[in-house]
């Protein structure tokens, strides 16, 4: 239990998927212009990550990992090279399914989240989390927590970025640095603050 809590805190703060591993940068820059949309996208990412990470874990360890097909008579088969195409297909399918379910049962949520869902399918944070989960040999429970933690960390970063950019509109930036340039520098400063958490051990 303590391990799981520390994994969660670790993936939210110290190993923040966006600021420490640079995943999901494209939508981070594109959608961080106002706080409401950033929050919407943030929740969508948390949700999709918490679902795709364990599903991909099951698929990887049940079908693709070396020796996983021993029950079917192929103990030497190693399909792990197929993980990229499988993961991206799973992610695209889940995003599509989530979109349809939300549309059916909660039109209100669909209106707020709907536009972001297709974007998420090609968000590197989602695929990256699944690949990290394989590379770091997490157990099933850990993969759920890692997914949720990464999503929370991503949302934290994008919402604070949106808030900062809101204030930045009134700042007097040097010519040529407005927009993308200053956003990257602010992201750098944010990454520095997040690094301070790395002294904390749980």
């Amino acid at each position, binding site marked *: 239990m303590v391990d799981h809590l520390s994994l969660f805190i670790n993936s939210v703060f110290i190993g923040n998927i966006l600021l420490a591993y640079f*995943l999901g940068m494209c939508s981070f820059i594109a959608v961080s212009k106002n706080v409401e949309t950033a929050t919407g996208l943030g929740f969508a990412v948390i949700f999709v990550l918490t679902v795709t990470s364990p599903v991909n874990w099951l698929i990887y360890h049940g079908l693709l990992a070396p020796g996983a097909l021993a029950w079917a008579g192929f103990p030497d088969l190693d399909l792990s090279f197929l993980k990229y195409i499988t993961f991206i297909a799973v992610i695209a399918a889940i995003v599509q399914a989530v979109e349809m379910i939300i549309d059916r049962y909660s039109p209100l949520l669909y209106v707020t989240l709907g536009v972001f869902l297709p974007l998420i399918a090609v968000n590197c944070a989602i695929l990256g989390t699944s690949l990290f989960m394989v590379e770091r040999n997490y157990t099933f429970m850990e993969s759920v927590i890692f997914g949720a933690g990464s999503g929370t960390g991503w949302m934290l970063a994008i919402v604070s970025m949106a808030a900062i950019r809101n204030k930045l509109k009134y700042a007097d930036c040097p010519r040529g640095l407005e927009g993308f340039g200053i956003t990257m520098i602010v992201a750098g400063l944010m990454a520095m603050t997040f690094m301070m958490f790395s002294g904390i051990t749980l």
Partner: protein
Amino acid sequence: MLAEKDHFKEILIKGIWKENPVAYQVLGICSALAVTVKMSTAIVMGIALTIVTAFSSLIISSMRKHIPSNIRIIVELAVIASLVIVTDQILKAFLYDISKQLSIFVGLIITNCIVLGRAESFALANPPADSFVDGVANGIGYSLILVCVAFIRELLGSGKILGFNVIPGFLVDMGYQNMGLMVLAPGAFFIIGLLVWLKNNLPGVSHEEN
């Protein structure tokens, strides 16, 4: 024939410089930041991405009349993912150390916005040869930024260029120290931000719309 050549040249210049994918279109920065601690990884990543973008544009463009538009994303992803698997296997076979250092970032070429972005915005509307050139151009434009950032980070962060020490010994004796910040994540953000600033102030470059 001459007109054709000029045409390709224009696409090349556009992709490499005028509309550089990283600095102008803000695409593909995830990996641009992550693999630039050392120049060797940046170069390999640049080559891998150029190959994937070029061939995915070529393949998607030659299928463009047969792909139904509502499932085009999944078709594009399938093409890109297959190319990435091939690239990954080749890297593992011939450059095992570097492929270990790139870790998941080779796989993340799939979701790199440059590849999908070129497929969506160029390959679906242009003939295969043009798309191939466009893919190569954007790949080179991306690699250029990657190598610039990696050069600065490796030089300032660990005092090396391509793994060779370039800081003279007497400077170290006099108290020269490597800038630890450059090796860490924030250094990458700062350098990209400053490079964009520099690029926006160079003559003949279109400005980012605000």
